[in-house]
């Protein structure tokens, strides 16, 4: 057991932090729902960050740390599946990667070169062409959302490959959620430390302090479970991590919006970028009952 980063992991974390620093504030004139950055994607690609998991001295744990860190940015790009799912499969998958689950719109579907097509228990892979997808700019989810409109050639995966896909989708979901939770909590802590009502900062009110503290406990737990699952690659660990992530998100999203008051409803405050990404992640792989079913199968 070693809960601190080793030299290699620290080096990657340092590099990611450096890169992330350029994307840490949203543009002042931004009033949209999704804040996508092609530049963030390009820089990650140019610096070979999408290959961290495959590097022997790094591995998926370092990749999960990177996913968690990058998810805290107001900007988003398709990071988690490229960093965590792609290296786990013995199939060459061009990135970005997106998921279409039971025909529903998905995040990054419009920019994806690989689509994971999930229909009930079957999992397949397809490569969309121009015109196969259609963007949904009005979606509230703070990812670039798109739906499938064309008919694709889907290559079905074997059952064992499908299991691997589901496991790493869960790890990716949990690692990304951990970062989103942290960012949403940090933003809210800042808000209630500054915002005064009744002559004192809201953050001095115990009714809010305790809820915030509970949120922090949940968020940190999600992070540990995600990192552990990335390290073990175990289907049960992944199911628990994703379940805890979705469960914690449902609680934290509500609390951080409550504490942010009307300001949290505006596009001026970045909060929605994180909370609406969390809401998007909450439905993945059948939501909490889907993760619980997997945990039931693998953990008991």
């Amino acid at each position: 057991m070693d809960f601190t980063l080793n030299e290699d992991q620290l080096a990657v974390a340092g590099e990611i932090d450096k890169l992330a620093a350029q994307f840490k504030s949203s543009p002042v004139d931004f009033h949209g729902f999704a804040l996508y950055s092609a530049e963030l994607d390009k820089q990650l690609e140019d610096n070979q960050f999408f290959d961290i998991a495959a590097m022997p001295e790094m591995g998926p744990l370092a990749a999960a740390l990177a996913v968690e860190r990058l998810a805290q940015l107001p900007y988003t790009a398709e990071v988690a599946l490229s960093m965590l799912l792609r290296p786990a499969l013995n199939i060459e998958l061009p990135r970005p990667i997106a998921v279409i689950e039971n025909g529903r719109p998905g995040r990054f579907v419009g920019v994806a070169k690989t689509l994971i097509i999930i229909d009930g228990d079957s999992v397949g892979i397809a490569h969309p062409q121009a015109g196969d997808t259609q963007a949904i700019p009005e979606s509230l989810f703070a990812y670039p959302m798109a739906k499938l409109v064309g008919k694709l050639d889907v290559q079905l995966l074997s059952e064992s490959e499908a299991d691997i896909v589901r496991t790493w989708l869960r790890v990716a979901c949990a690692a990304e959620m951990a970062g989103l939770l942290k960012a949403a909590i940090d933003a809210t802590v800042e808000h209630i430390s500054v915002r005064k009502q009744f002559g004192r900062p809201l953050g001095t009110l115990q009714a809010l302090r305790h809820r915030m503290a509970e949120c922090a406990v949940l968020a940190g737990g999600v992070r540990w479970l995600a990192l552990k699952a990335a390290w073990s690659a175990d289907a049960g660990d992944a199911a628990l991590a994703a379940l805890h992530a979705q469960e914690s998100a449902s609680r934290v999203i509500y609390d951080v919006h409550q504490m942010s008051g009307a300001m949290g409803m505006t596009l001026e405050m970045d909060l929605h970028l994180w909370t609406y990404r969390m809401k998007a992640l909450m439905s993945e792989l059948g939501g909490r009952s889907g993760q619980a079913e997997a945990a039931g199968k693998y953990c008991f």
Partner: protein
Amino acid sequence: MDFNWNDEQLAFRATVHNFIKDNLPENWEHIAHGPASKEQTVFAKEFCGALAEAGLLVPHWPVEWGGQDADPWKAFILAEEMWMAGEPRGGQYMNVNWIGPTLMLFGSPAQQQQYIPPMARGETLWCQGFSEPESGSDLASLRTRAERKGDKYIINGQKIWTSYAGDADTCFCLARTSQGKGGISIFLIPMTTPGITVREIPSIIGEGDIHEVFFDDVEVAETARLGEEGQAWDIVGKALSLERVGIPRFALATTTLHRAVSLLKDQNRFTAGVIEQAAKAKAACEAARLYSYQIIDQRVKNIPTGAEASVGRYATVICERLVSEFVVEHVPEAISGENPMLLAHHQRGIVAGIASGAAEIQLNLIATQYLELPREPR
């Protein structure tokens, strides 16, 4: 960062595990029904003696006090295995975790010689006299007085919720020698001292656990004081930091959850809604486990543990709650005595948010120290 146990740790866990298996009697689960029942306390003495002989009672203590200088991982592995088995050490876990080490740091040579070797041999039981009727979370307001008379102190007052007091040999007792937080001192008081009366408090948490302890003109020698007058707050802070993670409650909670699930599976009752609750509880147990391990890792590396300890404690409260509610809802017969092990967990689990520092106090600490929110007005 990695989550591997090394070979030495795995071997140590196996040794402890096998020792427990070989030394618990067949009716252990019935004996373990109350955390401090007479039967359990009697058995604990025998068990701790055997543990000591096998070098498994105080491995993390310094060699000069009968230990092996083992690192905090081993101490925690030991605690996990014990707690999973229903804590066959009984109240002696306190000696091992913090009372012994505190005496090593702050005791006089005479106090060390008198008290530490019997602890290392597993022969003695202590109780912790902190809480009072008017002083629970606000411990610094305690009122039990120790008045100096020549080279003696006369102690008057009352302690409450004192675990193991009925059978304890010695009390690690806080009493006031002057006003304020800086006016509290520690006394090591033999429980047979005239003027001490112990009364058990009937409770829902099992036989023999909590007590009232009355001190009526209890006379103790000056040499019974641990450290200087007024030093209690510093010493207790240090003592409790020795067990910042607290008891590895998640370990028994996990075992309990798996037991309950296996009972439900046998009855074909492990179905969708039930699975979902079990899975959530399991995830909470694992989160608490990893938080606890993180704190042990910090101790091994001498990284000061700040409010993470409270975060870990609160994560543990969450998992205890989910597991005990799971049992209540899906294996209710356990609460009516049909499964002593599940009942024992229930009775231990329901105090997780109260004993040794209430959950809300942990949340206050997390808000101030971890999230750095502005303080509440006093």
